[in-house]
């Protein structure tokens, strides 16, 4: 009997607190930036694709829902020829983002991905690639790596000395 009254009292008190439910979808909830929602591919600050096709996201993926094919442009810059995520399999664990050495693949705050047809959940590179840097502004992998690409010669990356002159015998 006492327990029953206690329950009723709690319900009564609750009537005076502010409701947590909101009028979704008219009203959007706040999601923290590190929310793990729809995956995108970002671009570096120079507007080039960040993804270098290293396959680390696909190997980190526990459900194997990422497939891609790496290729190289004529100046040595690597990029994915195609890149596919099957969101009908994705479990939004974020391992791909953790594995990505170039900050290319990022999880966003978008979770509204319902479809009537599962095939519409297969996203290709054109569907994934955004035009900005996403959560990590400033980072450009090719400015750090030692390979030569169009517009960046050997020795021009960060913390790099000018190329060695092999024919020099100077100490």
């Amino acid at each position, binding site marked *: 009997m006492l327990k029953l009254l206690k329950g009723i009292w709690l319900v009564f008190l609750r009537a005076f607190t502010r409701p947590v439910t909101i009028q979704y979808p008219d009203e959007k909830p706040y999601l923290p930036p590190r929310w793990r929602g729809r995956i995108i591919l970002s671009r570096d600050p120079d507007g080039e694709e960040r993804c270098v096709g290293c396959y680390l996201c696909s*190997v980190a993926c526990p*459900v194997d829902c990422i497939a*891609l*094919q790496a290729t190289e442009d004529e100046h040595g810059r*690597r990029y994915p020829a195609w890149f596919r995520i099957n969101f009908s399999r994705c479990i939004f664990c974020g391992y791909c983002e953790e594995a990505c050495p170039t900050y290319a693949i990022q999880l966003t705050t978008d979770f509204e991905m319902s479809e009537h047809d599962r095939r519409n959940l297969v996203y290709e590179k054109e569907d994934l690639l955004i035009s900005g840097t996403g959560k990590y502004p400033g980072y450009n*992998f090719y400015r750090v790596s030692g390979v030569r690409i169009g517009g960046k010669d050997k020795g021009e990356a960060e*913390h790099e000395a000018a*190329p060695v002159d092999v024919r020099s015998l100077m100490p």
Partner: protein
Amino acid sequence: MAGIIVDDRPYQVDERENLLQACLSLGFNLPYFCWHPALGSVGACRQCAVKQFRDERDREGRLVMACMTSAADGTRISIEDPEAKTFRASVIEWMMANHPHDCPVCDEGGECHLQDMTVMTGHTYRRYRFTKRTFRNQNLGPFITHEMNRCIQCYRCVRLYRNYAGGRDFDAFGSRNHVYFGRHEDGTLENEFSGNLIEVCPTGVFDDKTLMPHYTRKWDLQTAPSVCAHCSLGCNTIAGERYGTLRRILNRYHSEVNGYFLCDRGRFGYGFVNNERRIRRPIFRSNRHDQTIPMDKDMILRELGSLLADKPSRIIGIGSPRASLESNFALRELVGPERFSLGLSARDAGLNSLILDILRRGPASSASIHDVEQADAVLVLGEDPVNTAPRLALAVRQSVRQQPMQLVDKLDIPRWHDAAVREATHAQPGPLFIAAPHSSWFADIATETYHGAPDDLAALGFAVAHELDHASPTATPSPTIRSLAERIAAALRQAARPVILSGTACKSEAVIQSAANVAWALCKIGTPAKLCYCLPESNSLGLAILGGKNLEDAFSVVKNGAADTVLILENDLYRRADTLSVDTFLKTASKVIILDHLEHDTTAKADVLLPAGTFAESDGTLVNSEGRAQRFYQVFPVEGDIQESWRWIRDLAVASEHPGQSNMAAWNRLDDVVAALANAIPAFQRLAEVAPPETFRIVGQKVPRQTHRFTGRTAMHAPLIMHEPKPVEDADSPLAFSMEGYLGQPPSPLITHYWSPRWNSVQALNKFQSDVGGPLRHEMPGVRLIESSDKRTVTYFSEAPQLFQIRDDGWLILPWYQIFGSEELSARASVMAERIPEPALMLHPEDAATLRFKADEQAEFMLDNKSHRVPVKLNAAVPRGTAALTIVSGFTDAVLPTWSPLIRVPEP
């Protein structure tokens, strides 16, 4: 055996090894870079440091390099000693001070020895705050990429390229921390074994350029054990596939055959599998001038079934030395042995069966590549191994180190001590005699080189045999030949394990016979000599054992009307016989049915084309030049109607209710064909022992072709089908097209990739060997089908040929094979285009002077009833009175050697 103590526990090891090799054989994870089982120790990288103690009371100890210390009895070391561990970690840290931030864009990533060793030593953070050294790269040709920034200066590449493979256009340049590994200028690496740099380099300085256009990480490749299809040696390979295309070939270790290395033809010739001129579906032409009508499998089988059922006795089958034993046997069963042709001209089939006969008769047995490596004297008689069986040339190059090893042993230098051994032996390479038309690859190491026409070479062989045993016949050789024969005989007599190397390159029976005489004479005087013959194709010897009619017989059967339907198995007849005969034959036959995987001149004239699987899309057995039967496995399941040739033939037999098919209808798995073959032909009795049967399981599981990290399973097929398809069942082998299965080490024919915890690179191979550098664990080395019947009596070949006579009216045109371009399949790989030379005719400079030829002028000559024009090159190695024609781009050896006048074509 020696007892050593590692971290206070006793172990038994081989005292001839160094400590590093011994520790790795014991299963310890000791990091290293510069040491390689085939290259020996130089102590350059300082990575394999361990603590060595004088005795049990010594607590201080001292750091030694394990690779430079003998595993002597009583050696007491510690791998886990804190000081040794710190030392190894600092060595890695120094290396990583300049190593670029490249792993994501480096082809080596995921199979990088440097990555593995870095993780193993525990180095994680770069403390060095200053700039990284950079180098400019070179363009090293179509096979290999170069990224010098990644180099850790271990010197393995130079040691392999220069010391082991004899290359000259690659070296270490510069000094101090500016040491640079490359060529003196940009350009294609000339050495025929340059591809091994990819596997020998512990990091990503040298990588596979043919992989780059379809780059895939090691863990994503679906791989299967395979056998190289590009020459007769049968080197073991691992072939890798992704998304339905073949992507790369890696070496698969075999202690008796190829060891650690492959040639560039075998490694980079795989591109023909992805060729755009593949036959991918059945094609039917109602008459030969019509448009082709693509048909599906059922339609074409109905069509052919009724055709073949009408006239079973009017069908002949033409086999192929590049098709598997099983496919050839299936064809032989379908048409009957008396209507089965080997698909070789009488001359070529005769050469192959002569070799088979020699190896069977004995007493000299056939030499494996490993035997050639271990030989302490080699006589090359009329063969050009670097172009016809390249991996053998590399083995011959190692053989010259064997005899000087006696000196090394006398000086008490351990054999693994590479620098000291080379210092002690470089001045006096062991005996290697080259007698061949125009072969110059061994010029720098050969004791003597003799260039002669095939008849002269045979005369030399007979003379050597006669020198060794006067009971063996000889013709009257010229004084030059006689004195050379005396020197060769003297050297061979001194040897303990001589090998006589010959083959079909001269297209001369006499040369092959003379090599046998030499080996037999040696056997007779008590030296266990071995014979090594190079044959033209991957299954030439297998086909010789199988036996069948010649191509000429097939031609005459069709010509006289006894048969009119021809079933051709994976064979381009225009490479086998003269154009006119083949044209007539194909025209006379009313129905020409061809099973093949690539379009070629013969398929252009076929009525029906059936799509066969290449080595990567089928299973089968090949018999290499040594007589060793080895299994190759399907790498990936194929879409559409492509299937193994033997399956097509089985289907034809079923569709036509052919009388010869008694048991063919029951052939559902490869093992059924193997069993039938073993039953039918006694020589193949042990064929089932070549590899585990399909029913073989380890703890109830198949062996997976995919790695346990294989990715993209739920995304790669998504645009086609949302539900992940069930993995294709493999009825033919104990391998699965899946990542599920037994992850431990299977028997050696089933090893799909080398991987072990903490060892992701190819160096994981150490974990698969019972003793590093020795045989694999659970080794099944294939079955040697030919063992010489150990007869004491030696019956010499008695017909020594006459010496070669120069003619006034013509030149003897000999084939000059090329490593790139002469072999049919690898020449169809797109990457080879850059390496295949232009056709040319080589002439001796004095002959050219007689004819008033200058270099690069066009010469006209008659070949195969047609006149041809090619530029002339001058080469002093070509014997007088002969000319050597490069066998590339449309020129074949079908009608060579032949006599033809040479006419100078004046410049327009």
